[in-house]
């Protein structure tokens, strides 16, 4: 006979310290904030959840949003619609568009920033963008905390350590005067969705710096640093970029990722990048 159908025990910590202490004693617990990434992928009537759940939404500090001179600091449990409420002028067009693109308006009323970063299930739409923005995340555990660049967080060796909880995301205000953020693909099929972000700072007809990142589905983030470095300092307008050896570095780097990036997505990334470069030319 099937016995011991055990429902999870739910804990409602009110402070971060209380949370960290509970998490240390029960490292197998599920950290639950908005939960949309968890529930939407368990589309059975009763979602199967681990025995212990730490519910994070009663910890006010985790939902706080602060704005300082140099950066925006968002609590990991801040709801996406609340973040949008900060306004496009503060978030800047790319981040605003990226958050607005996530799920439906009703889902964004419960989904959180931390969920989008941590969820292993759904498309991590924001990750390429946060990586470009040099966002840093705070990981805390009992007795210590560390700040980590989002880029490093994606690295499996650098990610969560036992007992660590994502508490805050710090997004520096940037001076990129040209930003592009595009999500393309079938919204209903997250595996095929492509996220593309590209930023450039153009000063006196020169590319002072340029950065770009792309992500497919819930796979990793694609960056091409050498390519970015090679473009920095180039004078605009840049004509015939497809013939430029610099562009070859991009196409080669993309081809090297054949397992992760299909030829269809490769074409899209190359095309979006070229469009971005054209728009820089048009700025002049």
């Amino acid at each position, binding site marked *: 006979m*099937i016995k011991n159908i055990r429902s999870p025990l739910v804990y409602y910590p009110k402070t971060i310290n209380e949370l960290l202490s509970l998490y240390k004693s029960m490292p197998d617990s599920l950290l639950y904030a908005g939960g949309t990434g968890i529930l939407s992928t368990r589309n*059975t*009537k009763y979602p199967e959840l681990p025995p212990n759940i730490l519910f994070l939404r009663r910890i006010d500090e985790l939902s706080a949003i602060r704005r300082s001179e140099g950066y925006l600091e968002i609590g990991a449990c801040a709801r996406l619609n609340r973040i949008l409420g900060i306004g496009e002028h503060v978030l800047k067009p790319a981040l605003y568009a990226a958050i607005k693109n996530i799920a439906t308006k009703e889902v964004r009323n419960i989904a959180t920033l931390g969920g989008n970063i941590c969820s292993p299930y759904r498309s991590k739409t924001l990750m390429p963008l946060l990586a470009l923005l040099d966002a840093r995340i705070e990981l805390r555990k009992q007795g210590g905390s560390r700040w980590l660049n989002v880029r490093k967080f994606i690295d499996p060796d650098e990610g969560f350590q036992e007992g660590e909880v994502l508490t805050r995301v710090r997004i520096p205000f940037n001076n990129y005067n040209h930003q592009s953020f595009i999500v393309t693909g079938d919204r209903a099929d997250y595996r095929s969705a492509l996220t593309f972000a590209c930023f450039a700072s153009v000063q006196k007809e020169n590319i002072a710096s340029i950065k770009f990142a792309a992500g497919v589905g819930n796979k990793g983030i694609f960056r091409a640093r050498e390519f970015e470095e090679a473009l920095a300092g180039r004078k605009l307008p840049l004509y015939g970029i497809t013939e430029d050896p610099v562009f070859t570095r991009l196409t080669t780097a993309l081809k090297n990722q054949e397992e992760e990036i299909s030829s269809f997505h490769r074409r*899209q990334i190359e095309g979006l990048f070229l*469009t971005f470069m054209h728009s820089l030319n048009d700025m002049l």
Partner: protein
Amino acid sequence: MLETHKNNRFICDYYSLGMTVIRIIRAEVPGGTITNISLPELPPDAGVIGYDDIPAEKNLSVFNRTMPLLCDGKIRYEGEPILLLYGQNEQEIDIIASCIKIDYETDYTISALESYTDEQIDRELNFTRGKPERNFERSHKIVEEEYSTSEQNHYDLEPQGAAAFIKDDKSIAITAATQWPFNVRDNVSACLDIQQKKVTVDVPAMGKTHSGKLWYAGLLACYAAIVTWKTGKPSICLIPKTDSILYTPGRAASIIRHKTGLDENGKILCRSIDISIDSGAYPMLSEEVINRICFSAAGVYSTSALKITARSLKTNNPPSGAFNGMGFHQSFFAGESHANSLAKAAGLCPLEWRKLNTARKQINLPIGWEGKKPMQLDKLLETVAEMSDFRRKHAAYGLSAKMQNYFSGKKRGIGISVCCQGNGFMGKVEENEKYTVSARLDTDGSLSLFTSAVPENFQTSSLWCEIAGGILEIDPTDVRIETTDTSLVPDSGPSLFSRNITIITQLIEKCCNAIKKSRFRLPLPIEVKRSFRLPRTNGWDPESFSGNPFPIVSWGASVVETETDPITLDTSVRGVWFAADCGKIMNPYLARAEVESEIFRSVISSTMKPPVLKNTRTGIPLTPIQPETLFPIRIEFLDSRETKPGGLGELPDSLIPAALSEALSMGLDIKLRNLPSTSESLFQQIEHRTRIEEQELED
């Protein structure tokens, strides 16, 4: 009107705590034999039912076809029901379900659509008119193409399901989301071996069915009935969304090959069409599908020499269903797309080519019939062309498409199509059936309508109330459509192919007119019954391809304009223009609303990725995503020479896919030959074109 919604109960609203719930344990492989089933120990209120536990008839019967209610040991498709697991604690039975282990012997060969064998052929029809082979020899140009359409799901919001309740007198009451309550009744009575009068079937509220609830509810009703019969307790079987998408009957996939010979002027000389349609493991409706697909295969173009071979194939896929038109969609997608290639080969604009080749009378259609009503195909085509400014746009977009450059902006294209919709069954499947509607005018002045016909949507029931109210000069709110309980209403047949409009609406009118005549001569209440039987003479004979195929045929034409981002290959529709000649329009507002929502639906399904079986239980799209940008839709109804009402709900699904596919193809200077037209398929065609261009350069 909306206030009444709170009283509507869907099948899922019949569940209440304490009810016995049923889970279907399905095959995890597409073929093979079951070698062992190991069950965990079950709690006292739970149980399982297998093939051998079915009390009497072990097969579901639809028209003259059958399929086993549960797998008889040999698995024929992935997802085939093997066991019914029931219990009162849902969470508990979900855990038990995950503990049931089934072993299979899987030395099977997959029967697929693409490379079929003769054993797979369930039914094949061959039709030849004139001498096509000889005409091919003298053709100026011959165009050969292959088109494919993938399976398609209904994506209904409300679940498929059925509930069973036992009554004191040992009779059983079924509530099933079905378009055909009397078929459910017959199957339940057979599987329990009880008299038909001991089974009553009631139909809950349903959304638009698109013919997806024609026969499958019978299967679920039998499951609920068997469990309730065994336990003596009410039970309910609801299909989870994922299972519904993967395993319930959807639109059949098809491969259609066209070969057409043209003369010097671009007129069709001869055609040869070869059609394979995937009927799944149990071809429940293959006779009707094959008849309809043959009828529509060559479209509305006249030709004196034609050869059609159509076959329905048994495969290791779930059984396919009726789905809006049952074959017309696939036929018209291939036929109208091919028409565009023919126009190109003839060097003509697709509109002019169509006008050159469309038939003027039914008798001139490839499969001619004796109907003498003049057709207005040219007028339909001209109407949509003028509304959309087709000629100018076609020329302009054609030129722009030749300049394929990443950065020259979004690529626009425009496509046109023309089709027909057959209302009612085509074959002989229901020639012996008699369908009845009755109406009663009560002493309080209210009218009750009795029919087992299930309104296809909420607009249909409003329409019936309006018509009845109009004839008897009473307020439509005083007209009630009585419950569809089979013990109270006459058999009005299955509700599909717009039969509600073409048959049931007329019967309601007849009943109301009869009441009107005797209203002030006889005391109230007055009850009147009217029946319809298909004419026995002159009906369609599929063997000789002669007779009248449908009581009434509707005609339609459409233009679709699209825009494609050349980089991301994201597509959007800029506008849809639609014209129809569909007999008497009963309510223009409701007719427009119906067409508009069907156009939206068709645009979505034509560009949406289909779900794939196997290991996709998470991450498959569960709901279709509506377009985020509104596109203008213009709808015109021609003054029809037909005085009876015809259906129109299936026209968009036959028109839009081909027109949309052509518009996308034109914008990117490619040729799409498969449905749905996803961005990946656009990419593949662009790659294909690039390879050809490179090859040509090398040569």
